[in-house]
């Protein structure tokens, strides 16, 4: 039985090699969030000035959009790509678990989104002069990496649909923006309708973006959706819930992939392009 970490790493490496071989994929994933950030920041800046918390929302939100969009889009695309290349059958015929292959790809996609986030940070700080002091760099990095894993795990759930259906791209295209808004990446979820809050709470990235904000700005802690706690306990709660949700995503994705594989072996729907 192939080593799980080895397979994840190998799939990650292959995805990175492909990204490097074909850099044009980066263009829509860098330009779109950057433009979105610029528009949002200009609006927020006109409303409150560059020192206000909304600027932080714009920069973090733009970065999250890159990570999130990249994962959702690319996880699905990774499978469509395997179909086009004709490698999906070869990969699925290998003894390693298919979910581990896609996990490696999903992590690489989220990592590229992270690069995107860094680009948005740099632009936010140097072009729009936003003051973005990172209060706790270590916890910031941990929060960011855990958010990356959470986004990747959610990407896995969506990816399972792509093995079977050619219309799965429509599903993820349709879900990308709502999920992005609901998770509070750009706007505080307190501003969103109450009915959307439960949806927000079951999204790992919601807790992740909150944790990132907490580690970025201490004074910002009181404005998080979980009020009445100090920064550390709120951060601890964010990270714990996010880890639990991510584990649940991974468990759901494992079950879904098993179902999808069985269905593909029964229906012969694997190679639909």
């Amino acid at each position, binding site marked *: *039985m*192939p*080593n799980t970490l*080895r*397979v994840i*790493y*190998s*799939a990650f*490496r*292959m995805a990175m*090699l*492909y990204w490097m*071989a*074909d850099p044009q994929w980066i263009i829509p994933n860098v330009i779109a969030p950057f433009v979105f950030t610029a528009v949002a920041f200009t609006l927020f800046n006109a409303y409150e000035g560059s020192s206000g918390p909304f600027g932080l929302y714009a920069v973090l939100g733009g970065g999250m959009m890159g990570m999130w969009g990249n994962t959702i889009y690319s996880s699905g695309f990774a499978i469509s790509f395997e179909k086009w*290349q*004709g*490698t999906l*059958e*070869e*990969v*699925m*015929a*290998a*003894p*390693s678990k298919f979910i581990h*292959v896609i996990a490696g790809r999903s992590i690489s996609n989220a990592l590229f989104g992270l690069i995107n986030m860094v680009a948005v940070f740099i632009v936010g700080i140097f072009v729009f002069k936003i003051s973005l002091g990172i209060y706790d760099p270590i916890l910031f990095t941990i929060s960011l990496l855990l958010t990356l894993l959470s986004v990747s795990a959610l990407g896995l759930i969506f990816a399972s649909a792509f093995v079977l259906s050619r219309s799965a791209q429509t599903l993820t295209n349709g879900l990308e923006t709502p999920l992005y808004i609901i998770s509070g990446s750009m706007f505080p979820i307190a501003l969103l309708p109450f009915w959307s809050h439960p949806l927000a709470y079951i999204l790992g990235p919601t807790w992740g973006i909150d944790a990132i904000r907490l580690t970025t700005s201490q004074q910002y802690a009181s404005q998080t959706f979980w009020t009445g706690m100090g920064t550390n306990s709120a951060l601890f709660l964010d990270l714990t819930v996010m880890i639990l949700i991510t584990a649940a995503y991974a468990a759901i994705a494992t079950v879904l992939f098993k179902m999808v594989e*069985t269905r593909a*072996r*029964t*229906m*012969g729907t*694997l190679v639909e392009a």
Partner: protein
Amino acid sequence: MAVNERTSEASFKESVGLCVCSNLKYGLNFMNELGSQDGSSSGKAIVAEHLCKTFEITKGMLRRKKTQVVALKDVSFEVDYGELFGLVGPNGAGKTTTIKILTTMLIPTSGRATVLGYDSRKDVTKIREKIGIVLGGERGLYTRVSAVDNLRYFADLYGVPRNIQDKRIKELLEFMGLSDKAHVRVETYSKGMKQRLHLARGLINDPEIIFLDEPTVGLDPEIAIETRSMIKGLVEKGKTILLTTHYMFEADALCKRVAIIRNGDVVALDTPSGLKRYVMETSVVEVEGFGITEKEVARFREMKDIISVSAELGENKQVLKIQTPKGSEIISEVQEVLKDSHIYDIKIKEPTLEDAYLKLVAT
């Protein structure tokens, strides 16, 4: 017009024998000399028992209509260890479906398949670890990375230990004659090089059984011969191979036994010479000419003494192969049907495996 008697077998066998690829000089030391016979109580490498596969196709959005497509009706055969077994049949006959069931990619609707003694339905990982799959064509490779990157990736997916990977990849690339292009992007490879890389990928886990699905389709004759030589080399190394092909001469030259599959059924299973006995009492009249159309072909097919007709209706030349028990007696009738065409040559040939195949798939 010339009428020749030719009794020779296809000269292909000789050409394969003479053209054993120079790459075989490389050792492939890692390969098992003989497949180890894991868990097989029957002593057979592959057993297919009454395999049946039906696909359900759903159409329509609101009024969903389900239709059933039968891909396999009843496929049974056994393959010995170290045997090169051929599965031939027309498009849509069920060859690829059979391979997919044996390689655990599909679950049969009914029937049972065992590979190395393991059940293809349940023992998925055990089977996958011990088999190699080579699907023909230019797809199925990561073209933007190198051959080494492709092989390393699949080595990890097959759980080949890192300390073995480097040596095995080097040996495989040498065996396939790709060493000098090992670090070059696959997208720059020729068709033949890609096919050799496919074979290398199929061998990355040192499989006991190799499934080759039309490995020479679309290749230049020279590269196809080279690929066949490599396949022969693998059998000499003790590998068990299940090969599907459209080319009867290929099956004749390479396979110990051949199963002919038609409409999801095995209609014949024998050695190539055994299959030729189906058409021993017949001859093949091969006609080369110009101006021969589908109309004439249809007329031949309606004639009562003709068993089968295959036609290659090229732009500049048309070739008909007419299988008949009447031998040279039919030539006058052929000339009558083709009186408005130019006949370049008519030959009476001994039946080949292709003729046996044509008879079996036609009846």
